[in-house]
């Protein structure tokens, strides 16, 4: 590399990394690392990314590419921290993944000013949402996190996790469905909702 070219790409790399820093750290935490380990994983990934920068074909693919490196760094640390690797069983090709909070809450025949699903959303606490995401198996959690928290495109998620785009779609659907189910259960536990929420005149 010519020196000025080197300087230019170093400058570009610095800017990208510093801008992405909160996302990288947030993702490292969500991928299961904690405390100083999360910070070390990010630092390790950034250093590796710089070493391998020639492998990056297009700059627009930077996010997906560096998250993939980060993910491998996190997985390596988690494996080291755990003697026994946790095996997560993904759902088989079944029809799971169709829990809908909206369908639980929405009551089409109510008058227009009553909007139980929006009331439900307003009553949700930050902790409810955090716990619901954390309750997901890693494979689903990471996909939902990248899509909903970090606003990744499906193609970027596919690249970051090294999975086909169809798998991104199906894991996202199942992950979101499970998350909604968890939110529903939190709400029932906190007494925000009765377990059966139909019209309220259930026979007891």
């Amino acid at each position, binding site marked *: 590399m010519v020196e000025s070219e080197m300087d230019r790409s170093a400058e570009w790399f610095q800017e990208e*990394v510093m801008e992405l820093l*909160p996302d990288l750290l947030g993702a490292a935490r969500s991928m299961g690392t904690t405390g100083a380990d999360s910070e070390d994983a990010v630092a390790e990934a950034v250093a590796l990314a*710089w070493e391998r920068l020639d492998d990056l074909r297009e700059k627009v693919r930077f996010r997906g590419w560096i998250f993939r490196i980060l993910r491998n760094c996190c997985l390596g640390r988690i494996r080291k921290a755990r003697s026994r690797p946790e095996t997560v069983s993904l759902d088989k090709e079944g029809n799971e993944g169709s829990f809908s909070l909206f369908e639980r809450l*929405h009551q089409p025949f109510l008058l227009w000013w009553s909007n139980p699903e929006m009331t439900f959303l307003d009553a949700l606490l930050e902790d409810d*949402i955090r716990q619901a995401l954390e309750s997901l198996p890693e494979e689903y959690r990471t996909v939902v996190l990248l899509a909903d928290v970090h*606003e990744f495109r*499906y193609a970027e998620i596919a690249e970051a996790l090294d999975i086909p785009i169809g798998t991104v779609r199906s894991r996202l659907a199942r992950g979101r469905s499970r998350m909604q189910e968890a939110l529903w259960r939190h709400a029932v536990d906190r007494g925000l909702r009765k377990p059966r929420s139909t019209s309220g005149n259930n026979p007891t």
Partner: protein
Amino acid sequence: MTRNRRGREQIDCEEAVRRLAEYLDRELSQASRAEMEVHLQRCRDCFSRAEFERRLKARIRENLHTDQVPQAFHERMKTLVEGLGE
């Protein structure tokens, strides 16, 4: 799907629900997105559903996304990237 007078495809509720996630994630093609928008303008049920999912997604980001990193870590990373390429 049926066609209206201008020959544009009209999608039904089932199809609208199927496309909803990709619509909110901005992953639909322009044509598919346009069909979705026509349906949402006409169907109150699907509109309410889309609004709910959109707001839930926004809540997740609002609650879980942070622009803050610990100051010491920020400094550490700044030093690290500034030392690259030297």
